[in-house]
């Protein structure tokens, strides 16, 4: 479930364990950003649990505790459906995206899950124009370990933009 207070949570104390974990989390964030930039969104669901929640949601809704999301995937099947629909049905002008991830922090570690967050900035470039900023925001994540590697139980991509210019085509 989403937890609006996660924004305000302070990073966990930097013990050696937390530092090592932060490196691993940063690597995971970079890996997903890279595959999205490389037009390989099909690989994204492999980083999520079967009972995952993925939401792209405005800061406005998130802060007010309103559930409406710009993209809602409640479970891995919805996440895979989003990608199939994108590839099979959607009509949009082709463009290139770049993800910039920073400020990755581990917030808490328990036996059950790891909570982490990081900033994202996504640019978008049409084939005949300069890149523009598409979205700026913060990932609020709950991670679990499966078969030795970290995967998302929940990823909220909370964007600061009051408005989205034109469209969001692919999950960020």
């Amino acid at each position, binding site marked *: 479930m989403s937890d609006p207070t996660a924004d305000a949570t302070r990073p966990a104390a930097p013990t050696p364990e937390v530092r090592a974990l932060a490196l691993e989390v940063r690597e995971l964030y970079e890996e997903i950003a890279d595959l999205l930039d490389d037009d390989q969104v099909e690989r994204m669901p492999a980083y999520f649990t079967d009972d995952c929640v993925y939401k*792209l949601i*405005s800061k*406005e*809704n998130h802060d*007010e505790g*309103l*559930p*409406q*999301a*710009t*993209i*809602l995937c*409640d*479970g891995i*099947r*919805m996440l*895979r*459906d*989003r990608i*199939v*629909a994108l590839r*099979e*049905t*959607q*009509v*949009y*002008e082709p463009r290139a995206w770049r993800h910039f991830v920073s400020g990755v922090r581990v917030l808490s570690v328990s036996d059950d899950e790891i909570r982490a967050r990081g900033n994202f900035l996504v640019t978008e470039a049409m084939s005949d124009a300069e890149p523009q900023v598409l979205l700026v925001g913060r990932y609020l994540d709950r991670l679990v370990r499966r078969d030795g590697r970290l995967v998302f139980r929940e990823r909220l991509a909370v964007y600061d933009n*009051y*408005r*989205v*210019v*034109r*469209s*969001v*085509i692919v999950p960020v």
Partner: protein
Amino acid sequence: MGRSIEAEVPVRTWPAEGWTRVPYWIYTDPDIYARELSTFFYGDGWNYVALDCEVPEPGSYKRSWIGERQVVVVRGKDGAIHVLENRCAHRGARLCWQNKGRVDSFTCPYHQWNFALDGRLQGVPLKRGVLGKGGMPPDFDNAQHGLNRLRVHVEGGSVWASFAPDGPGFAEYCGPDLHAYVKRIFGGRPLKLLGYSRQLIPSNWKMYVENLKDPYHATLLHAFLITFGLWRADTQSESVPVAGGKHGIMVSRNVGKTATDAAGEIKRFKGQLDLEDRDTVTPIREFDDGKVVGLTIFPSVVMHQQANTLGMRHIIPKGPDRFELSWTYYGYADDSPELTRLRLRHANLYGPAGYVAMEDGEVLSESQLGATEYGHRAAVVEMGGRDVEPQDHMVTEVLIRAFYKFYRERMGL
């Protein structure tokens, strides 16, 4: 000062074919745009501004827009809703600087003039001067200097405002057919706010109005709707212009994923495509009539009911070549958790990343690019014939023709 468009603009002549043609200069000309704002948004029409559940308590307010003018929708101490222009009666500074909140009164940050929730001027600091010097003239009358307060109509939880103190009533403005469909959704059941989506679409605002008067495109462009039977040309449907073409009603039905003869002709019908999670396209039956209804209530809003999602799509012009589309998603206060879950899931169809609406944002952006620099040419709208009478199908552009019949009359073009 009124301005004569004829005196300032190169001669704008509508093509001789009439309402089956739409000249591209109406999407780009700044003087036409200015006249649209004053005629439609600031004229005698009713504009959607809010849902009453957004301002639940006395003193609760939200900012909204009518055309390019910002307003504050606020619930008064007695529970009545007021719509005030968001500009101080003194020097015109914006009074309210937050999108939502709760206050006892409004104080302008500039000179601290204070206004009651109904817009009355309550206090002017230093009104009597200091040490016998300065201050307002003795005959300055607070009652003459309140905030501009608009006429308000609340229809079953939806809030509408008009700049005209003595224009037509809301029911009259809608006309009986449209009004009945508005009441079908806003019949008085308390509403529950689910949230917002906001986009800035780089196209003229009328292109969005037309998009929702164009069922023809929905049967072709939107593969997702077509494939999963949410909107298809081979379903029982209606395209009804009302109030002289000003508003439009589109009716369809959710039929599910079925292959028919017509489906074979629709190139984007994806027979092989299926979803792992069919909940996304499977509504609970909510309305006894089984209909899916989209209403265009000119000039400010499109009301959608599709699958189990309900939404108000507020059209906020931002110049001739862009507009904000603000979506407010809602349900009813007594919805079951299961229905709320489905409303949120089905909202994946809409907003800037919607399976359907994303494509509209894309196509409208490209259409504006196709209008710019082509004022000497005109679009062709002859699908379904050349007349403006209601039709019992969706392979038609009748709603667009009827709209431009109305538009030309009101704009004097």
